[in-house]
């Protein structure tokens, strides 16, 4: 966290006015949602299914190197589409307004080892409500890393560049583990908690299904191409994991993103909540294809302000949100993917060591809030 609170210049009234302006942006999109948006998500879902089907079909002949390359690339893209633009956003309830039971947050399941309902709890409820609040938001370093000076250093953090790399490669398992709150729940006393056991079982079943599909049945169906197909599905999962890990790291870890004290959110108003989302997220700039492949999480700031707006609308919302950042003299953290990934990784390396300077005190705004 920077020594100076970047929102200190705003009065309480200005913050509430900012909140009202953001509400107006949201209302406008909601009033305009319609047939075109519905057609968009159906088209994306249909394209993803066709791409996955064709890629897996091509991989049946993966003994032939060009088939391996094309099939692996196609399957990687299909898995990324499934997780990012489709799964993540549907599970956020972005498309619930269509009242289509087949495209609904309560019925959707994704190509991921964490079952949808567990992910929805840890992601939608905990991460999106308590974004970047130390001790409340598990996304902050996923409980294994130190990503802000304000987090206490522990010798365990010396290895965090390695932990982060391993987490990137097996990201879906990392997410499943942290949706289960494994770190906390593996304590002897908690291990027998029936709720935890039921959830762990559900994860086990999901892992079994995913592994059977990717590493047993599909390779077996490939006959003589068994091993190349196995390598292909492993590669596709790896590509998907590293890609989504990178995108998500860019959302909250790059330099310039703020974190918050637990007590600073006590009695938080709607305007203050919005402001925390604005200061706690970072965007990725790039082409339309780039935004699509990130599931529009490249518009992380807009997504955090309005997590339930359809993802295809974030680009137009971003223009208005950015104007508000300028109006209220706030820093809109954004940059191209390589720059943001580098920035996030540099932080992971830097914070693996204890702070050089003495710990910075709580910024002014938060002190005011606590006093108020």
């Amino acid at each position, binding site marked *: 966290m920077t020594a100076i609170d970047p929102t200190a210049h705003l009065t309480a009234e200005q913050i509430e006015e900012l909140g009202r302006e953001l509400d107006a942006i949201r209302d406008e999109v*909601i009033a305009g949602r319609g047939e075109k948006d519905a057609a968009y998500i159906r088209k994306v879902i249909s394209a993803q299914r066709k791409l996955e089907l064709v890629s897996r079909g091509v991989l049946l002949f993966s003994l032939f190197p060009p088939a391996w390359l094309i099939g692996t690339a196609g399957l990687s893209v299909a898995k990324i589409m499934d997780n990012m633009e489709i799964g993540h956003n549907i599970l956020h309830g972005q498309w619930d307004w269509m009242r289509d039971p087949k495209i609904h947050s309560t019925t959707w399941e994704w190509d991921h080892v964490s079952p949808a309902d567990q992910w929805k709890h840890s992601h939608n409820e905990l991460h999106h409500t308590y974004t970047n609040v130390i001790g409340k938001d598990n996304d902050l370093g996923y409980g294994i890393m130190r990503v802000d000076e304000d987090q206490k250093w522990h010798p365990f953090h010396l290895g965090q560049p390695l932990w982060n790399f391993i987490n990137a490669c097996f990201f879906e398992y990392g997410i499943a583990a942290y949706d289960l709150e494994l770190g906390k729940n593996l304590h002897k006393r908690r291990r027998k908690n029936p709720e935890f056991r039921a959830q762990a079982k559900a994860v086990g079943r999901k892992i079994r*299904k995913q592994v059977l599909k990717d590493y047993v049945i599909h390779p077996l169906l490939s006959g003589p191409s068994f091993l190349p197909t196995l390598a292909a599905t492993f590669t596709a999962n790896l590509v998907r994991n590293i890609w989504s890990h990178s995108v998500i790291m860019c959302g909250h870890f790059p330099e310039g993103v703020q974190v918050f004290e637990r007590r600073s959110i006590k009695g938080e108003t709607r305007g203050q909540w919005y402001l925390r989302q604005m200061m706690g997220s970072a965007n990725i700039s790039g082409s339309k294809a780039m935004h699509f492949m990130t599931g529009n999480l490249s518009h992380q700031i807009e997504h955090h302000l309005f997590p339930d707006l359809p993802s295809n609308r974030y680009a137009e919302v971003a223009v208005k949100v950015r104007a508000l950042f300028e109006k209220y003299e706030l820093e809109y953290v954004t940059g191209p993917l390589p720059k943001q990934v580098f920035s996030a990784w540099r932080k992971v390396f830097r914070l693996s060591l204890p702070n050089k300077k003495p710990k910075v005190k709580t910024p002014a705004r938060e002190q005011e809030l606590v006093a108020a």
Partner: protein
Amino acid sequence: MTSTALRSRAWKLLEMVTTPLLPSDYLDLVSPLRAGADLRGRIEAVHAETRDAATIVIRPGRGWRGHTAGQYVRIGVDVDGVRLWRAYSLTSPANRQDGRVTITVKAIPDGKVSNHLVRRAKPGTLIQLDQATGDFVLPEVKPAKVLYLTAGSGITPVMGMLRDTEFDDVVMVHCAPQPQDVIFRSELHDLAADKKLRLTEVHTDTDGMLDIAAADKKLRLTEVHTDTDGMLDIARLDELVPDWAERETWACGPAGMLDAAERHWSEHGVPERLHTERFRPSVVVAGDGGEVTFSTTGKTVDADGATPLLEVGEEAGVLMPSGCRMGICFGCVTPLKAGAVRDLRTGEITEAEPGVLIQTCVSAAAGPCDIEQ
């Protein structure tokens, strides 16, 4: 191993390949009307009937089990991207050769689905279907004398019956604002003009009725034009159809007319001769707060228009699912079975329909409602 067992094994294997999706999710891409799919239909044509009514020709999926004349079907149509379900009477005969069915829809003011179907529906569009249902049908044994008493779009189930079954003695009294508002008017007149039927058209100036009557014919058709004639007074039925009490009667139209008919038939001691079909059982009037029923738990409490239903339920001791409590995580969504709720953020009203889920943490009662929890 039997072939069914073999097929179910093959299906299981397919499911292992397509997980977390189902094989049907992929098959739907190419063959949404196949046997075994969720029941759907494809709109193949839209024919205008009057200035605000149209007949929709639908090719139902392979799972369609057919219908009996007079029954209705629930259809799910995407209007502005939102799936809305409505019930419409089937107007095609049950034995139509090409396997298609038709519904005839009258656009009602502010009717989202009816206006969409009449004015914007395009051939090629997929819609969701339920199986035909309803007991507004003809008995297996043909009654000797029949009366159809209809108004407005209430003519639609009766048209299905008329096209399906021929009777020896049929009288029809139909009410519509003006002649050009009568759906199927030319077909009705053709039916009456059929050589087996003779039709006399009588304009009765004295009582303001337009009466098309056939004295000794199979089909007698009476049109009441409510714009010029005023609403049909059920007591005048004696004069229009003197032998109405001897006739097996099927009535369909607005609630007021049906209520009057039920009273009339009861007063004359022949309620068993009257069969009615009501289109819109009740109209939701959005208010501010109301009685909230949690039907699974069986609790009922009064709620104001400002308290989120999540809190209302928790106060009442109902085990409510909850999450962020600010409308972003969708962890609290619960089916709204009846009534209406208001979104506390936007003021938007949501009315109960099958499949409608609401976020209880940002929704308050807008009149009496029923939450499935």
